[in-house]
Structures are given as structure tokens and as C-alpha cells.
């Protein structure tokens, strides 16, 4: 599945931009200073926390190759030294809203996947189902954040695919009626001018529409995750 480009993790573009800025700053300002410190005092490892970010530098152990240490592509930014890791801390499991951490928190060094640059944002599928395009939506149509630009059919009930920001409709990456998975990139929006960092939050992001209470007669037990310890 890792070879399937359609399954590349897609994150909230606004978060992505914010992450880019933070990574740039951490890499340009903080890392060189930390690397110098690590070399000077002979420590094996150094970790600095700032807000939700954590920067950890580690001297490669003897006999360990740089390649063996390099994190998987697209997972962690690696700069300054091959043993440096910049990552966003995962929220605690009991985060009240249960929001997922972006799986590729510190990724997307400049030159990331096509279509993910600052001038483009992507509407991702809010659920597993079949993609239904909006009838009157054409490439070039101007949309605003929160506009419904399609839907995903989950057991016969449509869940809105909404524009994560203002822009012009660009490429539609999925054929009408084709299956989509949660978080899959569906429609590219070309952004007009500078991105508005808060556009997504104001409008509510498509992928955060609850997928439950739809279709299936089943009832998910509320509350926490049953532990297999019960077995």
C-alpha cells in the first residue's frame, strides 16, 4: 500500500503551512546552536522542547551508519545533522476532542508532493465511501472556505466534502463513483493570493465531520477504547 500514491497522507494545508514555518525556524536558528553545543560538551543526546515541538539531537553511536538512522522519508524532518529529529509531540490519548495528530507532523520539507505547495490546498475525504462530485462544479469555479464541493456516500448517506479554504477548483483526483478512504485527497483548490491561516478553522474542515450516526444501525459504545485486556 505504501506504493499507492493515492494513499499518501494528506494533512490540513493550514497546519502544513504553520509546520513549514516552524520547521524552517527551528532548522535555521535552533539546530546549528544545538549541534554546536552537542559537539562541544560531548553529550550523546540533547533534547529541547518548545510549545508542541521537540527537537532531539543524537550523536550516532559507533558502528551505526547514517543511513540506518535516517527516518523514513516523509516522516521526520532531518536537517543539520543526520541524527537530528524534529517532531511534534503527540497529544495525550485523552485529548478532549480526540483529534488525531497529523501523522506526518514534521514532514513536507520544501519540495513536498506535487499539489501541496503554498498556493494549493486540498479537500480530503471526510469518510470511507464512494465519491460523488457536485453536479455544477467545474474547474475554475470560485469557492469559499466551507463551501460544499462534493460528497462521500457512506452506506447511502452523503457526507459533505467541503472546501478547506477559498480558491479556484482545480484538478479532481478521484473519478465520480470511485471508492475513497478517509483523508484521501479528492479535489485540489488553487489559492488566490496569500493563504489565510484561519480559514479552515472558521469554516470547519471537511475531514472533521463525524462519520458516525449515519447509515448503520449499529451503536458504537461511547467512551474509551475497550482494552483487549478484557479478553
Amino acid at each position, binding site marked *: 500500500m505504501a506504493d499507492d500514491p493515492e494513499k499518501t497522507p494528506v494533512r490540513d494545508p493550514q497546519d502544513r503551512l504553520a509546520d513549514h514555518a516552524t520547521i524552517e525556524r527551528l532548522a535555521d536558528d535552533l539546530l546549528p546552536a544545538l549541534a554546536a553545543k552537542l559537539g562541544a560538551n560531548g553529550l550523546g543526546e540533547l533534547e529541547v522542547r518548545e510549545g508542541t515541538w521537540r527537537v532531539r539531537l543524537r550523536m550516532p553511536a559507533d558502528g551505526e551508519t547514517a543511513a540506518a538512522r535516517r527516518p523514513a522519508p516523509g516522516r521526520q524532518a532531518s536537517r543539520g545533522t543526520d541524527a537530528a529529529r524534529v517532531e511534534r509531540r503527540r497529544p495525550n*490519548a485523552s485529548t478532549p476532542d480526540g483529534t488525531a495528530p497529523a501523522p506526518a507532523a514534521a514532514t513536507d520539507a520544501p519540495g513536498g508532493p506535487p499539489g501541496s505547495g503554498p498556493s494549493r490546498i486540498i479537500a480530503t475525504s471526510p*469518510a470511507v465511501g464512494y465519491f460523488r462530485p457536485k453536479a455544477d462544479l467545474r474547474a475554475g469555479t470560485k469557492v469559499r472556505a466551507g463551501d460544499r464541493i462534493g460528497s462521500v456516500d457512506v452506506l447511502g448517506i452523503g457526507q459533505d466534502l467541503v472546501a478547506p479554504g477559498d480558491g479556484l477548483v482545480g484538478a479532481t483526483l478521484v473519478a465520480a463513483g470511485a471508492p475513497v478512504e478517509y483523508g484521501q485527497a479528492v479535489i485540489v483548490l488553487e489559492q488566490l493570493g496569500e493563504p489565510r491561516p484561519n480559514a479552515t478553522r472558521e469554516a470547519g474542515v471537511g475531514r472533521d465531520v463525524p462519520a458516525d450516526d449515519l447509515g448503520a444501525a449499529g451503536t*458504537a*459504545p461511547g*467512551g474509551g477504547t475497550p482494552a*483487549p485486556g478484557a479478553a
Partner: protein
Amino acid sequence: MFERVLIANRGEIALRILRACRTMGIGAVVAYSEADRDSLAAQLADEAICIGPADAKRSYLSPSALISAAIVTGCEAIHPGYGFLSEDGGFAEAVAAHGLTFIGPSAEVLERFASKEASRSLMARHGLPTIPGSDGMLSDDAHALSEAARVGYPVLIKPSAGGGGKGMRMVRTPRELEAALRVCRSEARAAFGDDSLYLEKWLEDNRHVEVQVVVDRYGRGVHMGERDCSVQRRHQKIVEEAPTPALPPASRTELCERAIAAVVAAGYENVGTLEFLVDRDGGFYFIEINCRIQVEHPVTEMLTGIDLVATQIRIAAGEPLGFGQEDVTSSGHAFEFRINAEDAEHDFRPQAGRVDRFYAPGGPGVRFDSHLYAGYEVPSYYDSLLGKLVVWGPDRPSAIARSKAALDELVVDGITTNRAFHRALLENEVFVEGRVTTNLIDRIGTAAFLVPRN
């Protein structure tokens, strides 16, 4: 037989089901949450599909996401594993309503056994001894106090739904009972969305012994022997073994035969486990039935050589069992050690993070069911089970010797596990002599096991 099955679970059990599918020539689709994108099961699957965010309520606990995933990937059946929706009658019903097969008991059977208290009276009617307890659910504190007085202290407060020790407390006085009721109700509500509680008499120094049963759709059933799960911490199983050292062979046979007869008579189907408490005198009492494949099923597989997950899938597909009780033979002794990402020295606090190095143990009789690999990030959203070390030997002492060697061989770097606790347990006299009771670890404290020995 099914062509394609959706695996609606994660971790080691997703991998275990995947392996069963592979050996049966069934295509396996793994449903994963965003937090499990890099999981081993998702990587090894014939197809993997993201069903939702890390929050289980919107992924592994979402019937619509799972059923929709099964439909869009062309699956005919859904295997729920354990935990999550595995015993949810509503989910099983919804799966069937969409023309798919739920790999487990039917919705109707799940509903019949959904309430522990109702199952207890049902099994009592079919001839199994049960522990004296409250007459139905506790309506309020006054009812709880009068029922506890009638049954006699100490009593165990239990939630009707769920498992895993949540909402469960042993109390010795009315005063303790009043305080615990509030806590148990809120725990049960949070964990299972149902805060109904009942009471059972607490048996001092009891053992937890359970019987594995397998029943096809045509009412033909066999038992596959028992397992002893007395090594527990706060009602969570840590180590399981079979046969139980608590009972002589004749009593074990009697227990298993009565269990299978009762469960077939009560109309059960698919794989299941009947849990019993065994008291100091070898008396046994039915406590509950688990309508799913269990974490500790490999212990039974090691003794019998029967693939329980494959059997489960065959039964769900409508095949007859195809073998009888006389075909089930059991030999040797087996242990299962649950390797959890938790810090035993700090109150078993769950751990999350990156696994830097991982080497699984091997050798004769050693099986390690795990989704670990070097570089794997253990997410913080789910349970802490990293793997199950299952060790078989021709007898108990040799199984213990192999277990020690295997635990010493296991390497999991980068994340704290409870390996040292298991290793210390294997040196503990009470354990080695097969005398562990369910309250032992909580009574003497885990620290006692972790003190280095000379």
C-alpha cells in the same frame, strides 16, 4: 468460503487474523486509523484502507466506517478481533443488514449473552454452578447495601457490560461499598456507555480458569480444554497457562464437559470462552462468557494444534465443525506472557514512542505474536499490548525453563515494557509451584516481584 475479509482491528490480533486468512487462501483487507498507517498489519495486507482518525470512536468503534470500508473494498465478511466492536450485537446486526457476514456469534446470540447477569442466570438454568450474587442489577445504593448484606461481605462490584477490570471493585464493608459504587458507575459509564452494576460474593484466594469452546451453526460443539488466567493485576490478565495447575485431570475434564454441554444447550455459536472462578477446595463457579476470540487463544492452539481463528472463520462461513471431541487432543504445557508497553516500576504506566530495536525470541516451542518492528512508533491512543510470548514445553517445568530463555532473548529497545516483571515472576516460588491466585499480585504488590534476587 469467503474470498475477501475485512479485518476491523489493529495490533497483534490484526496480524493474527491476516495470517489465518493467508493460510486459508482468503484475501485480507486491513482497516486502519490514521494512527496505525504504518502498522505491520496495514503493510502486509492485500489491501489497507484508512477508516478514520486516531480516535477509536471514529474509526475502530465506528460501525458505519467499518461497514463502508468492507463494501468499497469488496469484502464479504468482517472479522472484529477482540475488544472494540467484537461483542457488539448492534454492530453484528448492522453488518448482516448490509449483506455481510460478522465473524463471530450472530447478533441474536450476542444479545442473549450481552448482559453478564443474564448470562449467569441462563447458564445456571443449564446446570452450571454460579457464585451467589445480587438478584439482578443494583437499582440504587440502598438496594446494593441490602443485597451485599444478604450475600455476605466481601463482595465484588461488577459492571454488566464490558470487561478488562473497569468498573470492578472488591469491598469488605458497607462503607467501602457506598464509596465504590459511585466510582464503579462512572468508570462503567465512561468505558462501556452502560453503568448498570451487580454484585457477586468475593471468593478469597480464588483462581481464574476458563474453558475454550467451539460450536458450529448446527449445534455441534467441542471444548478445547481450559486455561488458567490467575496471574492478574487489578483484574487484568498478565500471564495465562494451560493446563491449570489448580485442578487435577479428572476435575478439569468435568469442568470442560459441563461447560460445553451448557453452552450448546443455551444455543451458543462460534468460538467462545466460559470463565470460572475456582475456590480453595476446587469448587468452580461460572462467572461470564466471552463471545469472541481471546487474547490468550494461542495457549490452546499450542496444546491442541488447532487454529482457532481459522476455525472461527470457517464456522462463520457456515461450514460444519468437521471434527468431534475425540479428535481434540491436548499435550504438554503452555504459557502466554503479555508483553505490554508499560512501566512496571511506575505503577504500570502505559508507554508510547518509537521502538528502536526489536528481536523476537525463538527456539523449540516458542511463538511470538507481535506487530512490532524496529522503527515502529507505538501510538498512545490504544491499549498497551505489544506482543504475546507463547511458550510450549512437554511439561510445566520445561515450559518454564523455555520461557525464561525466551524472555531473556527478547529485545525491545526504545520503549519500556513489562518484560522484567515476567522474568521476576518466573523466579517467584508461588508461581513456580502453580499456586498463584487472582489477588496475589495486588496483595503483595508488584514491587515485591521486581526486587532483584540474589
